[in-house]
């Protein structure tokens, strides 16, 4: 994927989806348009090489090497404070907002190092959506929340339709279609989180990052969200952080286990990680011998 070139870092709001990176004319299936056939092996969307993250002097991630496949669900598990959120925030450069954070090494998105000087983080984030641990809808109407991403990208064609599509995909449409003008803050926690998912997928990003999206929810809302993630994985590359082993085992194709100190200890197919992990430490963690 090295033949891909950066076509521009135009930060203007009307810059379209392809502005961050576009495949060079001769690029094969590596191009970022979604491959539909099963025959194309797992294409890598996000790849890191010796990724280190520091908060001031403290090192939160060490030498992470990982290849996240397209249109699959990759789960990230590990004990609290091991750097899962930090890793997620690296992918769409949300760590730029943390003053003390410093990133070393490479993080390639579609073959382009997102930490290169010519990458515009705003354009990057328009292609990598994010759902946060706590639901954080804007204090605006339900409609305005979902439309937000499209509006900031100045991409408001068929807005009504696309808002509806996003809400349907987030399994929220039936609950809110008669009150789109009401404040999003009047929704329940589970509804708010699904609204945040709708908001994240409305602009149709390539990758969806989810940081413990179900951690504040009851079992019913959680299973709704899990169904949703499986559904979304048909079109999106999903990277999900979770503390819930069963959840990771249920919904993910690949699982990455981070352990204390910010190391990526194991990364493999979910079945392998859960049934036959390579490292004793991982097995101990998964079986709850240490946390």
């Amino acid at each position: 994927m090295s033949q891909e070139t950066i076509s521009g870092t135009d930060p203007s709001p009307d810059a379209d989806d392809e502005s961050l990176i576009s495949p060079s004319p001769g690029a094969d299936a590596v191009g970022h348009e979604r491959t539909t056939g099963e025959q194309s092996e797992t294409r890598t969307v996000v790849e890191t090489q010796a990724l280190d993250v520091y908060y001031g002097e403290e090192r939160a991630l060490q030498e992470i090497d990982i290849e996240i496949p397209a249109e699959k669900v990759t789960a990230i598990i590990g004990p609290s404070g091991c750097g899962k959120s930090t890793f997620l925030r690296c992918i769409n450069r949300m760590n730029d907002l943390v003053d003390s954070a410093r990133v070393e090494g490479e993080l390639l998105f579609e073959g382009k190092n997102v930490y290169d000087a010519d990458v515009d983080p705003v354009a990057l984030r328009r292609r990598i959506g994010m759902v946060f641990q706590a639901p954080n809808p804007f204090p605006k109407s339900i409609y305005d929340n979902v439309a937000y991403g499209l509006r900031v990208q100045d991409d408001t064609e068929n807005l009504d339709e696309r808002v509806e599509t996003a809400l349907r995909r987030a399994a929220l449409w039936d609950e809110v279609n008669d009150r789109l003008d009401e404040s999003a803050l009047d929704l329940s926690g589970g509804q708010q989180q699904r609204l945040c998912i709708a908001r994240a997928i409305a602009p149709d990003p390539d990758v969806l990052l989810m940081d413990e999206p179900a951690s504040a929810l009851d079992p019913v809302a959680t299973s709704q969200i899990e169904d949703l993630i499986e559904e979304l994985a048909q079109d999106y590359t999903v990277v999900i952080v979770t503390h819930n082993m069963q959840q990771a085992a249920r919904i993910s194709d690949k699982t990455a286990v981070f352990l204390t100190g910010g190391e990526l200890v194991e990364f493999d197919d979910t079945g392998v990680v859960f049934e036959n992990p390579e490292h004793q430490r991982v097995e101990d963690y998964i079986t709850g011998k240490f946390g």
Partner: protein
Amino acid sequence: MATDSGRDWFGSEKTTGYAKGRAFELGCLAATVFGIFMVFVLLLYVVVDAFALTTPEYGPWLDGDFLTSAHSRFPEKAGIYPALVGSVMMLIVIALSAFPIGVGTAIYLEEYASDNPIATLIEINIGNLAGVPSVVYGLLGLALFIRFVGLGTGTVVVGGFTVGLLILPIIIISAQEAIRSVPDSMRTASYGMGATRWQTVWRVVLPEALPGILTGTILALGRAIGETAPLIMIGAAATVFSPPSSFFDRFSAMPRQIYAWVSFPKYEFQYGVMAAGVVTLLTVLLLMNATAILIRNRYQRQ
């Protein structure tokens, strides 16, 4: 609790310190009552004078005529109309000048420069500026707007700009607080959606902070409407007989007019007319504060 006997379970004065707490509570209550009582006495005093409640033969000083007529040599004919209009016009100048500058400064300090040393220095000094006596602002207005810029002495714009400078730090500080109270999760959500900083400020932060900013600004305007010293320094007229015809006309404002009445030799001016002026001023002030509270309650979220 693991003591052998349970003798301390019900506490005693010695162990609980309730007496101290009780005394402190009473002290605070006394302080509150004293403060409110003094304000109440003052209000009662001016209201009694303004409506001539103790000397009904003079009629109420504060009536429709008082609000619609100009000053007169005869106390029973004197009114506050030109000064009332002058005050309102001055407020308009202040709102149009100090509000955008103040809010702009607050946005810059909070959203753009939150962690650079110059911004920190500016911030500390804004705090200091809020404490500078108003006479000094009057001098500044005189030097800056009249001597340097060349605007007319005692005109509405000069009054508005000068008092605007005076309340600028208050507007900035209250706007900063309003902006700071917007949760960071809102900004994170916005950036996470691929919004630029500009979009985040305009579409998320400002709409959320606006009620707080407006409330703070109205309260600051309330402070502005009562300022007298700067108006004297910039040469606002003690008394005018007709409201200013434009923003570049000379004017008088309510507190300036009240101050003039107090120094009149006639007893009726010093008491009745002055009291009517004070009650008018306080009423306007009260209305403004009520608006501020209304805005705050209207937009307050859970």
